[in-house]
């Protein structure tokens, strides 16, 4: 490990400030989603989950993309702190991916009466991605810590961002011979206030993800530093 410890990088905004900001934004998002945005004429109250389900899904994509970007930087520069950043981003992405599956499932039950519908391309894509990224953790935790593990995890993370569009196309193509779509996904257009509420929710969820990313990174770095210290003490 290099002497200019990679585990003590500082960032501009402190984590407590970020946490306070995200909490405030989530509160604002709830107000906007439930009280400011008008109730959907067609789906009623159950449509409100849209304001959380879609931003969570978009955030999960962003996390996977961020993790792959860090992985690319790792392979490019060989700087080992990118490994932890890539891992934490993918970890957060997987958590948000699981939340997407959960909220999507609730929405499916509320509007179509089933907990799982294969007709929803987004949900199927997230199931594939969830399985893919779960295997990422299996791979990572079955290799000794070190540059080898960092490289393998990074390559697999890069495969993930290639898999997202390819799977998206594949699921679209499969509609043809799996079963015809029984309902349309493009409902009525969002009104202005609905769209505004959606944007507020999106920003809030993204901030939550970023805060969690920073908290986990902080914890993991602290852990690594502590281990380093302990090794020095016992040596």
């Amino acid at each position, binding site marked *: 490990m290099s002497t200019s410890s990679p585990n003590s990088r500082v960032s501009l905004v402190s984590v407590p400030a970020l946490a306070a900001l995200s909490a405030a934004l989530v509160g604002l998002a709830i107000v906007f989603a439930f009280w400011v945005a008008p109730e959907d004429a067609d789906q009623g109250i159950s449509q409100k989950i849209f304001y959380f389900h879609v931003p969570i899904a978009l955030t999960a994509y962003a996390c996977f993309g961020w993790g792959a970007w860090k992985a690319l930087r790792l392979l490019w520069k060989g700087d080992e702190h990118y490994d932890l950043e890539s891992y934490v981003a993918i970890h957060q992405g997987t958590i948000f991916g699981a939340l997407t599956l959960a909220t999507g499932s609730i929405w499916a039950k509320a509007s179509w009466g089933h907990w799982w519908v294969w007709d929803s391309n987004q949900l199927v894509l997230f199931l594939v991605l969830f399985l893919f990224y779960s*295997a990422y953790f299996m791979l990572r935790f079955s290799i000794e810590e070190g540059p*080898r593990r960092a490289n393998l995890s990074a390559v*697999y993370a890069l*495969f993930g961002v290639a898999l997202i569009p390819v799977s998206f*196309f594949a*699921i679209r193509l499969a509609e043809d011979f799996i079963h015809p779509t029984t309902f349309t996904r493009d409902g009525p257009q969002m009104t202005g206030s609905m769209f505004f509420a959606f944007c507020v929710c999106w920003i809030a969820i993204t901030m939550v993800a970023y805060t969690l990313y920073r908290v986990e990174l902080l914890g993991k770095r602290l852990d690594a530093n502590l281990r380093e210290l302990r090794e020095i003490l016992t040596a």
Partner: protein
Amino acid sequence: MNYLADVAALARKDLRLELRARDTLPAMLLFVLSTLVVFHFALPTGADEVAAQGLLWVALVFTALLGLARAWAPEREGGALEGLVLAPSDRSAIWLGKSAAVFVFLALIELVALPAFALFFSPLQAEAVLGVLLANIGICAVGTLLAAMAAASRTRELILPLLFLPLAIPLVVGGVGSSVSTDPGRYLLFLGLYDAVFAILCWASFEYVVSE
């Protein structure tokens, strides 16, 4: 071309090893035939031919997995991978040579499995065979790289299907589409696209899988 000569030498080495030891090919062959027999009992009367066409892809993917799990076994057991990595040639040649060898294995198995499928279930269209060929490229390209990853982990064979199956889903979609759809062209095009994207990705990233 020096690079291609390296690739050919590596692929030839794998084929020769298999010719002498004969442990992977017979196992794959027996596996795919047994699977087809299992499918006969898994498809109740009244299940249409289309269902069998879909199941063929399950058999092919799992047979490929069986071969892929053994793909790096000679290198691992002989400790030869370090030597190959240190050899003065491009490291991606190791991947390409191995993929070519796995492709030959898979094609040989399918030379028996596809006629057997036609005999047991229903005849295959030319487009379906073309789909199998295109999917083979993707299976070998991605599978060989993932098998090298799995070989570096503690859990080895256990982890390979977990890594491989999510990536194989688009191949299954393309393959099944090319066998059952009325417009197989789109699916073949999709398979070609998949092969191109992932072959380039594997080719570029293999170096990081084997080096430290």
